[in-house]
């Protein structure tokens, strides 16, 4: 589930509020998004892909909270990692361009 909206990084663009398929965020009066309905999060990671400044972190645990701090996430380099993989952001190669899916059956384990 969504665990972190970084106050330091957020530029208050409101995109996460707009794109979340299950409407997890509320936009506060100041423009900062808050996690208003964490239990509605479906752990689909898509908000991270859209966040232009890597201010969001979705924990992989679907049914339980995970206490993490922004500092820890930065230290292990995991915040913003899904957007990097998708290849969104300036100067990056889109995942679609290097998609290996059409070729993976070439390396299937051999049948004995």
């Amino acid at each position: 589930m969504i665990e972190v909206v970084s106050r330091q990084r957020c530029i208050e663009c409101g995109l996460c509020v707009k794109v979340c398929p299950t409407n997890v965020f509320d936009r506060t009066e100041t423009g900062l998004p808050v996690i208003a309905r964490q239990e509605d999060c479906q752990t689909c990671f898509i908000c991270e892909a859209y966040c232009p400044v890597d201010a969001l972190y979705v924990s992989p645990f679907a049914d339980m909270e995970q206490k993490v701090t922004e500092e820890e996430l930065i230290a292990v380099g995991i915040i913003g990692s899904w957007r990097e993989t998708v290849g969104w952001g300036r100067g990056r190669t889109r995942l679609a361009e290097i998609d290996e899916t059409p070729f993976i059956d070439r390396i299937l384990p051999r049948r004995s």
Partner: protein
Amino acid sequence: MLVQDELKLTADVLVIGGGPAGAWAAWSAASQGAKVVLADKGFLGSSGATAPGGTNLLYLPPDDKLRDEAVAQRMKEGGYLSEPDWIHRVLDQVYINLERVEAWGYPFRRDEDGVPMRDHLQGPEYMKLMRSAVSRAGVRILDQSPALELLADEHGVGGARGICRQKNRDWEVRAQSVVIATGGCAFLSKGLGCNVLTGEGLLMAAELGAELSGMEFSRQYAPSAAFGTVTRGRLLNWATYYDEDGNTLYSPGGPRPHDFLPTMLRKGPVYAMLNHADTEEKRRILRQSHAIFFVPYDRAGIDPFKERFPLTLRYEGTVRGTGGIRITGEDCATTVPGLYAAGDAATRERVTGAKSGGGAFNASWAICSGTWAGESAAKHALSMRSSADGRRLQGAGRAGMSHPSAAHGQGMDASGLIQSVQREVFPLDINYFRSEPVLQQSLERLNGLWPEVYAKVTGGSRERIKAREAAAMAATARWMYAAALTRRETRGMHTLLEYPDPNPEQQHRLTVSGIDHIQVYPEGRPPRQAGRGTMGACRNYGDLRNRSSEAVGAAAWIAAAAGEVEGS
């Protein structure tokens, strides 16, 4: 509800749902010159089963031999409930549309000979592109705007109403044609991207008397990390499976036992490790394919190539099932004038038959049925002499709606109802290892829950949406099990312990109709004595159409469609 603050729009075509099917339907309708509004519960671009991950596609180059073989194989795997012409139609149409997707800027890989490999799409990229295409076509997009009910009069559907949930404001769109592209129903099982898929489209269509088909083919579960949501199984082809003590249960190479994962998970925890990706190069290739697969493990600190990870199965409902709203012809129309269905909301049996062809068939079906439904919806609307503005339309929603005639007693406990429905459809022992007495008891419990959907709905936008979702899930579960108990055989993905083989006499599709009173019958052969329920409604409906000179109020027809009056 603040009526004066309602958002009111008029269009030719209203598309409900903003996944691939809805996007293609909206684009296709707009390409015909229709004025189109698309309303999605979430956001066109991020919403639905496709956007977060990626999807394989049923796609073959125009090679007669290749295609004939694929069609023959599908006919066999689908228990001969699909139709060769329809599979060919999908292969033809999807080829055209994927060329278009490439022209719009999707960077398909090419093989060594320069042939584009158009059999996989990365979800975020694909759906972002579809949003641009739909916007460029001039479609008005209502994001975060779930539809709650259809509008109708004696002539058929005429639009829908819903909620702009971030503005706490109702919306009403009047349109001569409506395309339902709301996806299937996955019962909030947290499969990747699937929690927006709760079946309201099926319920809305059924409330107007539309029929469903193939609801018994809803027995698909997908593996994911036990703690996570990423329901992608293809990379498990590189996995060895283990039990809790580290004993090997299965290793690639040998024949995999029938019902392997469900059987093993019944006995205890099952773990996997992708140790057959045994070189750096192989690991890189897999990471650059279904990349979303790795996100949960990377974040949980598990190296899936070298460490065992726990697996579970998440129920996929009708999303990876093959059933949905019955379509009556190549235009993806339903039995209700003006109402069309596309994508996972529609039955996919004509193409997939009785067994899910995995995501590939559904993804190609979404593209094609969306294109066809959008085009025919536009033609239907543009053939009308006037707009839907002048029609005397009424909301057709009943179950899970605070309708004065329906509300009684204490408030509806939507969360409680959802959990009760999940207890019937999630367990492998009920829904995977299907047997007649167990399914029968489950259906009786579901029928016992059903009156709760008519309780009063109190609260704001969120509560109103949730109540409708709860009602739709309860309805879908009942349709699934009613159909499953009627199909007394094993065919495609449907099994019954008591009938382990296909029965040639049941080689036909099953139509399901009705809401309070459900009827199941072979397609095209409705029971002669139509009692209470939608068959009665359809008969009424036909009568109403024939007696067009007679002023028949919309309320009477809608009540008939909801199964509240006897067939005339």
